[in-house]
């Protein structure tokens, strides 16, 4: 009887110790996305993606010796900086989250970063903010993103053209933030690489006649015409007019121009043209959708990026052996990049174990994550060429 009592007391003690340990190690991650507002149709599956990673880690019981991870959702509204700041403030001060998965749109992300994350020293990983301005924002090493900056496509475009030996191009862009931003970043990158942009001319979408634009582009000349526009808008009008007048034979198309409509409109008339758009051949995508099953739409934009953002936060915590932002913020780049064992979706438990045993991981995840520069995704692009009137994959980069 005495023995039994001792045993019971001992096990109770142990249990309570374990419970206390577990309780101390409860990790909270804020999920701040625009659940209302312009991208409210995308955000539910983004949040589900992030919470899937958290559930996977909790179930493994390996994070920081058995910590549970809970998600706290908040609404960024995508457009209202004041509301987003207030929501993030609540996450940090009243819910006391240990990291933030978010925000989504570039504007509110910048607001939350400067008003909440930096003053309170909380790590933030955005799955979808793509504005180049965020690359240079004051962040004390707290801000990361699993989406590439728009500036990145300009660099990739430059690499593609340089490899093909094109040194001189004419450039036209659709007159909006997307076109202008892409054109500017491309021009800067191309000129830095020793190329020449002979002219950078805007075109309006849906206009009646583009002969003035094509006249100016042709007069400036160049080996190739870069069309940073939309295939179902003015971009096609420019290409049509340029082919018809014999101004340019080959073109270069960024993401807005690549679609079935391009083949349909021009076919082999644009033979030999090049282009690129976001895309990856990494096995992570397939694994992610297999893992999700039918629970939510795994192919919805930025959903895999959300899973990766949440996973990175937790892996970094494990690597730092702490859930304190100031401790683990330095580890995010380490777990995301080589060297180390490649980690795909569904392998978070394996990753946590490797880190616990003192090994290194290279998180690939659902979107082939590779963080560069100030902590943003290098992005993966599919380079295409037009061959036999069809869009064909040249390679992935």
């Amino acid at each position, binding site marked *: 009887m005495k023995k039994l009592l001792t045993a019971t007391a001992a096990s109770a003690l142990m249990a309570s110790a374990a419970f206390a340990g577990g309780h101390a190690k409860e990790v909270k991650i804020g999920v701040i996305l625009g659940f209302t507002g312009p991208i409210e149709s995308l955000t539910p599956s983004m949040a589900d993606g992030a919470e899937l990673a958290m559930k996977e880690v909790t179930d493994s019981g390996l994070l920081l010796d058995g910590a549970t991870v809970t998600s706290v959702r908040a609404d960024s509204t995508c457009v209202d900086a004041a509301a987003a700041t207030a929501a993030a403030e609540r996450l940090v001060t009243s819910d006391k989250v240990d990291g933030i998965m978010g925000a989504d749109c570039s504007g509110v992300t910048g607001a939350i970063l400067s008003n909440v994350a930096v003053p309170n020293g909380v790590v933030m990983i955005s799955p979808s903010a793509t504005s180049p301005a965020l690359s240079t924002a004051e962040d004390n090493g707290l801000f990361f993103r699993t989406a590439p900056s728009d500036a990145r496509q300009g660099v990739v475009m430059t690499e593609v053209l340089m490899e093909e030996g094109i040194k001189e191009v004419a450039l036209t862009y659709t007159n909006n933030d997307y076109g202008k931003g892409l054109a500017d970043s491309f021009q800067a990158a191309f000129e830095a690489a020793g190329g020449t942009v002979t002219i950078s001319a*805007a075109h309006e979408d849906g206009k009646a006649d583009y002969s003035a634009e094509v006249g*100016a582009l042709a007069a400036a*000349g160049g080996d190739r015409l870069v069309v940073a526009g939309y295939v179902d808008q003015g971009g096609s009008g420019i290409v*049509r007019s340029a082919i*018809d007048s014999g101004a340019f034979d080959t073109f270069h198309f960024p993401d807005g121009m690549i679609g079935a409509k391009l083949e349909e409109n021009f076919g082999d008339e644009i033979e030999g043209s090049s282009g690129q758009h976001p895309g990856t051949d990494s096995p992570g995508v397939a694994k992610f959708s297999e893992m999700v099953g039918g629970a939510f739409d795994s192919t919805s934009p930025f959903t895999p990026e959300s899973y990766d953002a949440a996973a990175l936060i937790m892996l970094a915590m494990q690597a730092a052996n702490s859930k304190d932002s100031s401790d683990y913020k330095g580890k995010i780049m380490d777990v995301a990049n080589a060297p180390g064992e490649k980690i795909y979706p569904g392998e978070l438990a394996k990753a946590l174990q490797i880190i616990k045993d003192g090994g290194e991981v290279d998180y690939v995840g659902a979107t082939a994550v590779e963080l560069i520069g100030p902590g943003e995704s290098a992005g993966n692009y599919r380079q295409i060429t037009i061959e036999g009137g069809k869009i064909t994959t040249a390679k992935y980069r």
Partner: protein
Amino acid sequence: MEILNALVALSNFVLIPAIAYGSQLALGALGVTLIYGILRFSNFAHGDTMAFGAMITVLVTWWMQSHGIHLGPLPTALLALPFGILGCMALVLVTDRAVYRFYREQKAKPVILVIVSMGVMFIMNGLVRFIIGPNDQNFADGTRFLISARDFKKMTGLDEGLAIKTTQALTVVVAVICVALLFWFLNRTRTGKSMRAYSDNEDLALLSGINPERVVMYTWLIVAALATTAGVLYGLDKSFKPFVYFQLLLPIFASAIVGGLGSPLGAIAGGFVIAFSEVTVTYAWKKVLGYLAPEGMSPDGLLQLLSTDYKFAVSFVILLIVLLFKPTGLFKGKAV
């Protein structure tokens, strides 16, 4: 040789596109000007009337293509054009019966009719989108080029290519024929003369026994024919997209006003003034002057007066200047 190169480059990128675009604008502006001269209001639905006529033509063209009816090197759309014109005539006559006649009988002020025509515009706009959808439609066939840039270079040995599209040549030819027919009709036939009389002085025309309803009907029929022709030519040359016709309304009105509202000759001149100003003022002269300048003195800069962003500003500045100094337009139309 250098001078020839300069000339070819200029024709290829400025003269030919501007002449083709100018012809399309002129045909459109003729319709606007006729309505203004005879029915005395600015018809904002004109762009969408063009779209409707062109749409019927596109549908008939498709039907003909599926039955193997072709016109050899010419686009099949020319064969379908009469059907498009008939369809468009039916539409404008129904619109006139259902809408405009009511306001005419009330002797409504022109400004009311303008607003009414905007309502008609939105309905026609919706009708076209509903039937054929808002997307680009391709209906051009036949030979694409009269002469392509590559062939021209091979033939002449020049560095510069000259491309003339079949549709561009066709546009100019058809526009000339239409204008000739219209002027013959207005100046030589009884109905044409009664239309001009009605336009000049409504009361006197009524006193001399001209039936106003007949004049109005003929006007609409001619306008429908002109609008459909302009719409089809435009669609052949560029592409058929309903929204673009709505956008075309602005340059068409600018053409009609610059030329002088109510003056058919002015509408044609206005069309070319607007088209040339859009293309030439924003043209980069680097290439042309590079050929003309002596060796070693070819320009480095683009020599572009204004960026192409401002091409619409250019046509509207011309419009403003004309209205300030000649409020009736270049060809003495009616004051706006």
